[in-house]
């Protein structure tokens, strides 16, 4: 019996080559109703306004950042992390529940080589487009419609990763 269990544990990752571990997972137990989804639209809209009004979507802001010629983006990212960290610690410490009364589920990230290789490639793309995925959507909305091509390319890039991920070092 014990041997069986061990075999299963070894075999499992091989059998399900791609266990679904989403990087931004939905852990809510009950499905979202269309009305329930509306709140994410509103959060997204506010988020998009902040992105655009703080000019985080500007190609020039990203250039300033990578040329160390402005503190702005470091201030944005640094203070965002600080507020996020404080909030997550408060949620954990006081076991704050979701509005549906569920326990908040947080995932640990597992180290993979992809975080170094993929992360480095992401930096290359970030400095070319002047945008990470969030700002791409805000750039399109704020009138730079040609960025739709960047978005379509990014979708194609994601697809290529999915197609060839098993051949990549990880």
């Amino acid at each position: 019996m014990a041997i069986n269990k061990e075999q299963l544990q070894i075999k499992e990752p091989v059998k399900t080559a791609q266990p679904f571990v989403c990087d931004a997972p939905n852990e809510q137990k009950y499905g979202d109703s269309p009305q329930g989804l509306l709140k994410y639209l509103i959060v997204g809209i506010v988020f998009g306004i902040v992105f655009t009004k703080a000019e985080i979507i500007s190609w020039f802001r990203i250039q300033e950042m990578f040329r160390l010629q402005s503190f702005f983006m470091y201030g944005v990212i640094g203070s965002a992390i600080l507020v996020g960290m404080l909030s997550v610690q408060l949620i954990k410490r006081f076991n704050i529940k979701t509005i549906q009364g569920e326990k908040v589920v947080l995932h640990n990230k597992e180290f993979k080589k992809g975080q170094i290789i993929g992360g480095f490639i992401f930096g290359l793309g970030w400095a070319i487009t002047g945008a990470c995925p969030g700002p791409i959507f805000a750039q399109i909305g704020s009138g730079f419609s040609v960025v739709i091509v960047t978005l379509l390319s990014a979708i194609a890039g994601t697809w290529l990763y999915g197609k060839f991920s098993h051949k990549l070092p990880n």
Partner: protein
Amino acid sequence: MEQLIEILKQPWPWYVAGPLIGLTVPLLLLLGNKSFGISSSLRHICAACVPARIPFFTYNWRKETWNLVFVAGILIGGFIAATFFANPEAVTVAASTQEDLKALGITNFTQLLPEEIFTWDNLFTRKGLVFFVLGGLLIGFSTRYAGGCTSGHSIMGLSNLQWPSLIATIAFMAGGFTMTHLLLPYLMAWVQ
């Protein structure tokens, strides 16, 4: 009210924008147990539109619809900000950055994105190939390879004190510095 709109029209400082972005983390968690992350939306689009029986794209993407609604909101937010709260002034770019970019052939600093590059006219030129197609491909490919982008790793991951996210963030910055200082001059020369 008019005064408020005048204030809103000004570019928002980092100490307003940063904390608001940070608050997205607890907001999404408490509204419905959702972890903050944007690049996942690209995967869900693949899963919904072109799964092609690839294991990486065969999952219940409908459960993650919220993520697609969220990024649709970001797009609408960009539209609202640019339409109703647009800053009448030109974007301010650090003088030293302007100098550096002028040397690379970018001289128009009025819009949020350089007009020399981000127009439809450039789509079928070398500029389009580098800045839209290559840039997009790199971002889409690498965010999944790294398992997240600035939101998923740098903000959500670091908020949750995950050291792999710190490594990813350092790699993001290393890539950005490499592109900006070592490769961009060659790319800009090639697209001129």
